[in-house]
């Protein structure tokens, strides 16, 4: 076939300057239309409407004037820092345990995954019941076994309640991140460990020079993703303490609901939008890292 024949247009009269036929462009648009429509309705409109609702500057003035807001921001930062770091440290350690190929460890792994697999509402509410200071199982046992009349105020002391919220968050999401790190560990070639072992490297040295360098990218990317999810974690705080006692333990994810419950939609939206400067850079860095990963 000649070169001229290969480059001959299918429908010469309809060829445009860019080389695309009008038919192909039309078909492309038709095929794309449903996706664009769904994207516009399900993504663009809700986000744009939310941002539009959040354009009321008086809401932000009112938000910053509310004494509970600054406390909430501080709570959110502490929650984020402690929960994410603790969770990943524990997940890293546990992934080292669960990666071992033994039958009983696999059974334990199945049990370990359960908190993540079951729905949040019943599990977190069961914690709420267990930790009730009067009738909860924990303090009832302290009373029956040790005669402790007034057990710890798990959900009534602000500090303890906050610690319990972080604990429940970690308990709920730890299995997922442990699984992710297990897959990361399984991807490391066993030859490296065998060679290191022959060279006399101990466990710590194997971790330091083989495991960690191989896992670091996954670990950091997962940490960032977890930060975004933790920032939006409503269940752990709201279902356990309702942001209490005394509105002292709200995080940004629950503060919005508090405002909306009080028929104050504007402040609810504003309290969510104030987290955007924190979320957007993380999303940007995340996408950049993932793009690099895809290119590699």
């Amino acid at each position, binding site marked *: 076939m000649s070169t001229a024949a290969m480059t001959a247009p299918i429908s010469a009269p309809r060829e445009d300057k860019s080389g695309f036929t009008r038919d192909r462009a039309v078909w492309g648009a038709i095929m794309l239309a449903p996706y664009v429509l769904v994207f516009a309705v399900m993504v663009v409109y809700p986000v744009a409407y939310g941002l539009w609702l959040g354009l009321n500057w008086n809401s932000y003035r009112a938000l910053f004037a509310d004494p509970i807001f600054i406390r909430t921001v501080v709570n959110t930062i502490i929650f984020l820092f402690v929960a994410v770091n603790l969770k990943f440290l524990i997940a890293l350690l546990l992934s080292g345990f669960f990666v071992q190929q033994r039958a009983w460890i696999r059974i334990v792994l199945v049990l370990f995954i359960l908190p993540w697999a079951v729905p949040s509402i019943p599990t977190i509410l069961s914690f709420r019941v267990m930790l009730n200071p009067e009738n909860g199982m924990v303090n009832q046992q302290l009373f029956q076994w040790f005669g402790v*009349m007034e057990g710890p105020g798990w959900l009534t002391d602000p500090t303890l309640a906050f610690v319990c919220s972080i604990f429940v968050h970690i308990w709920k999401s730890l299995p997922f991140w442990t699984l992710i790190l297990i897959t990361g560990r399984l991807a490391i070639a066993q030859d490296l460990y065998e060679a290191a072992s022959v060279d006399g490297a101990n466990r710590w040295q194997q971790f330091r020079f083989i495991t960690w360098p191989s896992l670091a990218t996954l670990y950091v990317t997962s940490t960032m993703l977890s930060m975004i999810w933790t920032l939006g974690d409503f269940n752990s705080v709201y279902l356990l303490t309702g942001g209490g006692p*005394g509105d002292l333990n709200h995080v940004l994810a629950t503060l919005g609901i508090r405002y909306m419950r009080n028929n104050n939609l504007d402040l609810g939206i504003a309290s969510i939008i104030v987290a955007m400067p924190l979320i957007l850079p993380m999303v940007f860095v995340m996408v950049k890292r993932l793009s690099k990963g895809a290119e590699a």
Partner: protein
Amino acid sequence: MKLVRHFAMGTAVAAVVAGWSGAASAQEVLTAWFTKGFYKGEDDALLAVVDKFQKATGVKVELSLYATEDCVTKSVGAVDAGTPPDVGFCTTYDFRTTGKWAYDGKLEDVSDVLEPLKSELQPMALSTTFLMNGKTGKKSYYAFPVEQQMMHITYWKDMLEEAGFKEADIPKTWNGYWDFWCDKVQGSLRAKGKRIYGIGHPMGIAASDTFYSFLTFANAYNAKVVDENGKIVLDQPENKKAMVEAVKSYANIFQRGCTPPSSVNWLDPDNNVAFHNRTTVATHNATISIAGKHMDDMNNASLTAEQRAQAKKNYEDNIRTAEFPLKADGSKMTNLAAVKTAVIFADAKNKKRAKEFMAFFMKDENLRPFVEGSAGRWVPTTLKAIEAPFWSDGKDPHRAVVYKQYKDGTVPFQFVYNYNFTTVNAENVWAKAVNRVVQDKIPAEQAVDEMIARIKQIAGS
């Protein structure tokens, strides 16, 4: 031929259906949203009124009954969207929306319906519906006072006796009263190894019980928050000082371990639950619903004979409804009443019929069965109904106390004078101040300063 017959038959059916639907659409319709009653008697009485109204007028009433929280949430959404029902009656409108709706011009002026009824209504209850319209700058009647509630003390008489005390031992003075439940009753039960608390004392931010109870404490110290023009007077020295004492008094019950620790997170039903579980000996509660639960049980055919007998014993002998003690200065306690309001919306499609319906509903023979259907949970707003034997014959141990409190006189909430107090209450600045003292251990004076600052931010000066 068969085809022609089928076609003719189909045409005839279509014509009948079209004619019927045409007739149906021609019938005048009135939409009404009500809170679903706690008891079947309430709903039955309401349905009877609706039925009578439909028969009398030929107007179809489309009645929807919603759970308490759903009712107000749905109403707020409908009003914002400009598609409200014609008539709305949710039992939390007064706490949350009536004043604001009136101010924003969202309610129909119902003076023409209420004026002829004025002499039949309790003046305080009526006064709560005389509201400011921010658009006209004038006050007028924008709601119907359907029923009301007050705050009561409820206690287990048998638990009191178990602690070694008689009812006659209960002090009447303010401090003596709380000391009695906290130190003597709880102390005695604890000495017997029982993990029981003297008082179920609502402290939760999200509970309306908390602000109702706290504002009763504020009344006990004569802490005035707003004047009748809605101006904030809490920052005046004598009111501020009284409020500090109220915060101290309210916080003190928690600080001395006299209420279950979980009361800091309580929602509205939780003090009832703790009482029913006999975790607390006494509690304060708006309405006599705690005792009412046992009355409901004693008439509940699905329970066993033993359970019904126990419920009857609880209602008649074991549970007592009582008034609050005397104020801190020794004077008679003020009964804070929440008047539940029905409204006609300004954007309603059928305001004329809505007014007719409400005029019909507010007639004593219609309203009384509805209010009495709540088994004493709601108190009448009409002068005639409260004098009915249901309340005044003294045969029912709980209603007799409610009747006495009513006769002692009632006062309204601040939101009647300044609608922004619905937001103040929703945010529960009162509980927040108490929690600051209890949890953050700041002085009550500082907590009240913060409270005043926040109230001014929300409700103006």
